[in-house]
């Protein structure tokens, strides 16, 4: 009686374990944002960073880049997005070295290097602000489909997620995104998915 139970039970258990194993082996990681499919190379950005150094997006290969467009005297969406990204960094542990948060200014008249550095590092030490001439900035806005109106006061609020290979993978709505989702996706992308 016990032998029959052992054999049948083990067989059923084995089938379940096998099914679980197959499902685990074949599962695909999912991204939580609005996925860009197929992934396209992210347009390069050549600007000046808030340390006064020349900056190009293509120098960030190997890192996940979280790109945002905003300005430092922004009263609502920009600080909300940066605060969420700060929480994201908190969830990433020692992976933070492989993540670069960038904010391209939409208000080149008021955002100078010192102001941007102070504002960005106020959220997290490695956050970087990017500036440039109106032409350079306009080129970046165009490349990412960002609308800037009212001298920068009104702007798109997407967060662009660029993988370590330099491909644009997905966007989040910056102010409303979940830091946990962003952190999970950063980890997924760093694994090479």
């Amino acid at each position, binding site marked *: *009686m016990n032998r029959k*139970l052992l054999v049948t039970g083990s067989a059923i*258990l084995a089938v379940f374990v096998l099914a*679980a194993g197959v*499902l*685990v082996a074949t599962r695909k990681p999912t991204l939580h944002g609005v996925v860009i499919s197929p992934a396209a190379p992210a347009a390069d950005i050549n600007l000046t960073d808030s340390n006064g150094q020349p900056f190009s997006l293509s120098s960030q290969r190997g890192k996940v880049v979280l790109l945002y467009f905003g300005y430092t005297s922004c009263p609502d969406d920009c600080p909300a997005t940066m605060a969420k990204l700060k929480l994201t960094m908190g969830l990433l542990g020692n992976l933070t070295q492989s993540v670069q948060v960038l904010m391209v200014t939409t208000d080149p008249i008021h955002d100078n290097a010192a102001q941007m550095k102070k504002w960005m590092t106020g959220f997290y030490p490695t956050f970087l602000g990017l500036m440039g001439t109106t032409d350079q900035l306009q080129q970046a806005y165009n490349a990412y489909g960002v609308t800037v109106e009212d001298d920068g006061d009104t702007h798109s609020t997407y967060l662009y997620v660029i993988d370590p290979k330099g491909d644009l993978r997905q966007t989040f709505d910056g102010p409303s995104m979940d830091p946990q989702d962003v952190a999970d996706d950063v980890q997924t992308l760093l694994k090479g998915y």
Partner: protein
Amino acid sequence: MEHTSKSEVLNQGVVVFIFLAALTALEFFVAIEIGSPVLLAMIAFVKVGLIFYYYMHIYRLNLQDENLDRHSYQYKLGSSRIGLWLFLLSDSFIFGGLFISRFNLLGLGPLPLASDSQYIALTITSVLLLSSFFMNRAEVSMEHGDRKGFIIGTSLTILLGLAFLVGVVVVEWPSAINAGVTPSSNAAGAVFFVMTGMHAFHVFTGVIFLSIVLRNGLRGLYSPEKHWAVESATVYWHFVDVVWVFFYSAIYLIGKLT
């Protein structure tokens, strides 16, 4: 009564418990890593099948013999078993309603519980499973005239039942309330509290039932031949465990990943 040796029946209880524990661990893994509701449902049904057959010995319903003397203990025992299972069936409709309402209101999505809920739930589920294991030993002991084994098994079952209640009411509920899930917060909160509350109430009544059985057992009221109270308390206790197999899956496992 089965014509098998006591040790064989006890070993069978051990084997069943090991399978139940393995399936519970697998369930947890599936919920966290795969999130397939179909696989979770299949595992739950196998667990319930094991409990129905080996711990609740549902096949004993078949032992009803119409040729027996209507006033004999054996005949009345058969009728009592049918009555007990009919009661369990009617009770299932209440639980079934709650179970369905979870999917009706929340679909296959998760309940917005605190992140440590998952581990509290796994712990209390293990406690309840362990209590079923000891209850099985208590009943088998009584069937074979081992009064000491019966008393130890029943006492452990009562203690584990109380531990389960503490886990739900003192640990899990405050944790949920801290996470903003209250009975009146939204549909998910209502579902969570009414499901765990209704189940905990059944555990509570089971503990009372078992305490009375233990007291009477200590007084020597039961014999290997006549112990319907022990058998019915046992079957009721396992039924409460069966309900939790489904509820655990529905509250904590389904939608965990999505």
